[in-house]
């Protein structure tokens, strides 16, 4: 459903991503892994419209004939609103001063806004906004149950523990009804139990028909839940395949464990 072709991203003289091509299939959990500085987050930022790639194409095809979107040419907010690609951030970006519920409602902004009659009708208290809001709260409640935060719905998001903030950010992204959810290191900083809960949540999201693309350092998470892994190093793809294939790839092992430089004199 997502096909990245010859994606290149330069920052001045630095080639962060170098003619990268890969596919993410519908209904799959695709993981992008690689050592620090391999260009994973840059790829994410290109896909979600935060960077405009230097060259290359990123095409998203909605499953079941929902249309095709050239993501590299769309403005950032349209990628979420029209192409339905949601994302989370490496350093959690919640609306800390707003409640958990409000965070989930802000994510439904476009749906709710459409029901306000350009704001005027809803200010006057007429029209169908009330029903739309009730539906929005119902959807928020569904995700609150899914991430186990229903009892904290009216607490400020900034007051939640770290693991809960991670889950909330995922739930917030799910509230835009995405077809593709991009997660930037969702397991970073989680303890093993929280990490396991996250796996269950991600599998549940996949079972709801949403495809996932994730950047992850935690090999436990990656190997256990991914259907397909893309390995990057220095902006280039060095391996691509199912978890067992990637694990057996000597190039990947070299990239992760380090390899001797060519001019290094053997002892």
């Amino acid at each position: 459903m997502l096909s990245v072709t010859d994606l290149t991203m330069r920052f001045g003289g630095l080639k962060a991503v170098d003619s990268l091509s890969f596919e993410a299939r519908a209904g799959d959990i695709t993981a992008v892994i690689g050592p620090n500085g391999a260009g994973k987050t840059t790829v994410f930022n290109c896909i979600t419209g935060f960077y405009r790639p230097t060259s290359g194409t990123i095409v998203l095809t909605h499953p079941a004939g929902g249309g095709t979107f050239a993501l590299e040419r769309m403005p950032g907010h349209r990628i979420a609103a029209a192409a339905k690609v949601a994302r989370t951030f490496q350093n959690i970006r919640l609306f800390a001063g707003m409640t958990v519920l409000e965070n989930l409602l802000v994510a439904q902004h476009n749906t709710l806004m459409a029901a306000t009659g350009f704001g005027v009708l809803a200010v006057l208290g007429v029209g169908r906004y009330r029903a739309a809001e009730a539906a929005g709260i119902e959807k928020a409640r569904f995700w609150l149950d899914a991430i186990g935060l229903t009892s904290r719905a009216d607490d400020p998001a900034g007051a939640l523990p770290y693991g809960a903030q991670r889950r909330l950010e995922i739930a917030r992204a799910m509230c835009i009804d995405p077809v593709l959810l991009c997660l930037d290191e969702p397991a970073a900083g989680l303890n093993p139990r929280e990490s396991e809960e996250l796996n269950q949540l991600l599998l549940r999201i996949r079972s709801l028909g949403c495809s996932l693309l994730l950047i992850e350092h935690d090999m436990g998470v990656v190997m256990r839940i991914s259907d397909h892994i893309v390995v990057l190093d220095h902006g280039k793809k060095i391996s691509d395949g199912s978890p067992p294939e990637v694990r057996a790839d000597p190039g990947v092992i070299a990239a992760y464990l380090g390899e001797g430089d060519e001019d290094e004199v053997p002892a």
Partner: protein
Amino acid sequence: MTALRDAFLSAIVALGLFGPLVGLVTANGEHGLALTARPVATAVIVGLVFFGRLLMLSWRGRTPRATNRALAERITRAGKYLTPVLLVAAFALPFTGSRYYIDLGTLVLTYIMLGWGLNIVVGLAGLLDLGYVAFYAVGAYSYAILATTFGLGFWTCLPLAGILAALWGVLLGFPVLRLRGDYLAIVTLAFGEIIRIVLINWVSLTNGPNGITGIPRPTLFGLAFSMDGGPGTFAGFFNIEPAVIQRIIFLYYVIFGLALLTNWVSLRLRRLPLGRAWEALREDEVACRSLGINVRNTKLTAFGIGALFGGFAGAFFATRQAFVSPESFTFIESATVLAIVVLGGLGSQLGVALAAIVMVGGLEVLRDLLSTLGDQLHSPFFGDIANELPLYRMLIFGLALVVMMVLRPRGLVSGRTPGVALTKPKEIAPELVAQGRG
């Protein structure tokens, strides 16, 4: 001992500051200006600083930090009862019949309305706007020009003035979209000045620095408030003696209504997706974009709606004064309104109202208080302090503002109440709420 040394240091700083400012006076002497020294007045002020600092240190030494938090909660809880009290007081004010108080009330309400308008931009959307007076000016001149050129009435022009101001708000929004924080502040500051300078120089339209006179007064359902008491007037219709106070009271209720409208719309919007998006924008713009919120349009609506209420207030200002000139729309007005919003607590409706009462009403009360106090102190020892004391008004006021911001850095009413809740809305501590960086 440290406290003593600290107080002593403060006294030296005060001496350095007030020595030249208060201790030396220039007066017309025989050969031009002459300098006179005033050691007593300086000593009094330096002594005040010394003991004030000593008192402050001993007070802070005794009270633990936690009480500050409890105080904040108490203020928030008191706010629930304060709102109806203030509303009733505002409604009942004209019954005092005192022209002075009604005029002062009208002025305070104008600033409350401006504060609430700016609160949408600065408090909710987190966009620092230093040129809010521009929209006030656009509203005032729109009404002035429409009324004097086309003979339109106040109630026809009021929405037009608001819409024109909103239009300018959107126009201003376009170039500043890419700017954030300090840069945004500077551009809005410049915009405020541009409007004022255009008003001064576009003589054919605005009559330049002379301003526009003879702006018509508002009518009550077509009944004018004129002094002749004829059949078409308010006094004539109700068969009462015409008096100026009737118009003053009417104007008071007009601005009262307009301010309430501003408040009502802001409160409604906060519960709607648009208001929530503004607050989300203040919290994190990048996250908003990732959720499909059109950041540009959302900022534009904040600017536009804020400007709309500025325009309404401007039209009211023009009709109350019956005269507008560029002098009324200087940067100091923007600064006052912004100070009201910041002092009140970003995003808080009650805080803004309280801050406007303190900043605008308090300043007037202080003027009275100081001149009465000065009269009491007529004695050779204090010299001509009776005439001078009122001049210290701004100094005392500035000091009060500094003290207030030190004690309550996030404003008078600084918590945030969420607009929607699953069970029961809970106040959100100000430390968690972002202040916005444009």
